[in-house]
């Protein structure tokens, strides 16, 4: 793992909401190709904001972010930067807590939307791969259903397929299972696990312990906008060094 180059490099990232809500306080992070990173921390610790800064859904206030060789700094402006952001978003897929499928489109239409609108493929050439993805997430029979007729777990799996249709190099997961009924969490984590097995680089904000403990190669703990500590999951869950990590882990491992 160590010989691989970092695909994401975050330098001294700050995010301030309004004038004084300091949500990220100088985060540094490197993620190598193929790594599976789980970010943990109490709510309000800035994990989601950090994730959302990586594809610029949230505009960083200071610092810079490098994704696959494209460096974008906070505070810059202009057309070149906007183009860079689009470039980064094409390489980085994202799944949301509330799925955010397009409700006016069927499952298959959701999946081909990116390739057709963003990559300029025709519907016809984008459909075979979309069907492949749909099969991969186990929803071939829901091909022509609208999202409102799918369960939460099914919606999230379609959302994952939608992101994968863009052939991203990194996948971001923002609490992908938090909005799901308990019995539906497994099917989504299972898809994430298979994605990790296929070598996808993943950064996930999640409290799903199977994913963080068994699938992730690295666990990061954040608190109050700060990076607290990180390490392999077995080490982090059995022997955290920092008192704040211990406190938090005691809470969720209970």
């Amino acid at each position, binding site marked *: 793992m160590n010989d691989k180059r970092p695909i994401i490099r975050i330098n001294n990232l700050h995010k301030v909401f309004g004038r004084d809500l300091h949500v990220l306080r100088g985060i540094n992070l490197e993620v190598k190709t193929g790594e599976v990173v789980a970010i943990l921390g109490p709510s309000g610790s800035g994990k989601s904001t950090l994730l959302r800064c990586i594809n610029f*859904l949230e505009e960083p206030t200071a610092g810079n972010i490098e994704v696959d060789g494209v460096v974008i700094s906070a505070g810059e402006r202009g057309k070149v930067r906007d183009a860079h952001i*689009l470039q980064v978003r094409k390489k980085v*897929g994202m799944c*949301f807590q509330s799925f*955010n*499928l*397009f409700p006016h489109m069927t499952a298959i239409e959701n999946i081909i939307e990116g390739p057709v*609108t*963003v990559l300029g493929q025709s519907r016809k050439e984008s459909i075979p791969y979309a069907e492949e993805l749909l099969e991969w997430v186990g929803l071939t029979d829901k091909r022509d259903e609208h999202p409102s007729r799918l369960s939460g777990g099914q919606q999230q799996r379609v959302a994952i397929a939608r992101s994968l249709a863009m052939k991203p190099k990194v996948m971001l997961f923002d609490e992908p299972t938090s909005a799901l009924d308990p019995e539906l969490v497994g099917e989504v984590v299972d898809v994430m696990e298979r994605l990790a097995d296929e070598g996808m680089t993943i950064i996930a904000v999640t409290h799903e312990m199977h994913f963080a403990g068994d699938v992730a190669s690295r666990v990061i703990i954040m608190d109050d906008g700060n990076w607290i500590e990180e390490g392999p999951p077995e080490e982090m869950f059995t022997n955290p060094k920092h008192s704040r990590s211990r406190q938090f882990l005691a809470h969720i491992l209970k």
Partner: protein
Amino acid sequence: MNDLADTAPDTIPQEAKLVLDRIDQDSKRFKVNMVIAFAVLLICMFAGLVFIGLDFKFMFNWLGFIMTGIGYTLLVSFLAITLACILSILGALGRLSSNPIANSLATGYVSLVRGTPLLVQVYMWYLALPQVGMALEEMGIQGVQRLFTLPAIPAGVLALGVCYGAYMTETVRAGIQSIKIGQTEAAKSLGMTRRQTLQRVIFPQALRVIIPPVSNEFIAMIKDSSLVSLMGVWELSYRAIKIGRRYFQSLEMLIMVALIYWVMCIILQSVQERIENHMARGDRRVS
């Protein structure tokens, strides 16, 4: 998942079936009663008209003449609605724009037009604009006066279109803003530009939200098109008022023209329902 259904045969108890039957009966009875109530209401109205001695023969004789005015009404309404739709989309984009010029233009447009009576606006286009043309001509710009002196129909179309465009701007803006931020974020995270996000994700969803209020505007506009009669256009209501006055039978004429507008609006309403049903396409509101 279907274990339960496989093992235990599904039996709805008899008493539950009775309850379900009763619910069915109730909803059927409600529908029948509604039809009866409407019929009674219409008969009462008709009887009332007969009672006050309405001259139906007179109405029938002039029906053809009045109906020829429907062409103007439809023409003015259709053109004004088209103009209003274009203006409202531009206006909504302006109101949501971060460009200060576009934003202030759109905001000013909505404020000014919504803040003045339509009647004044109609006269403004028809009577006041030529004066502006005259002033400009005197300043040495050739040919503007003719350009600014509008015939009745273009003036009416502009007045109605610009006015309804302002109201609809707010409807469209609210429709766009009603779409959850998550939709924009999902589109962005796929790499869509702002324009693509609007076209592919926001507009199609906003359209569904704004169809009922926009239909409302359309219906109101059909009726407000009668304002062009102020400029002497022989449309529906102008004809009815003229004939009514001439023979001192305004009641007949006004009732007739009112019914014609009503029928037009009922047709429009059924079109609206059809579009709504089509857009619903089997999806529930919650997601």
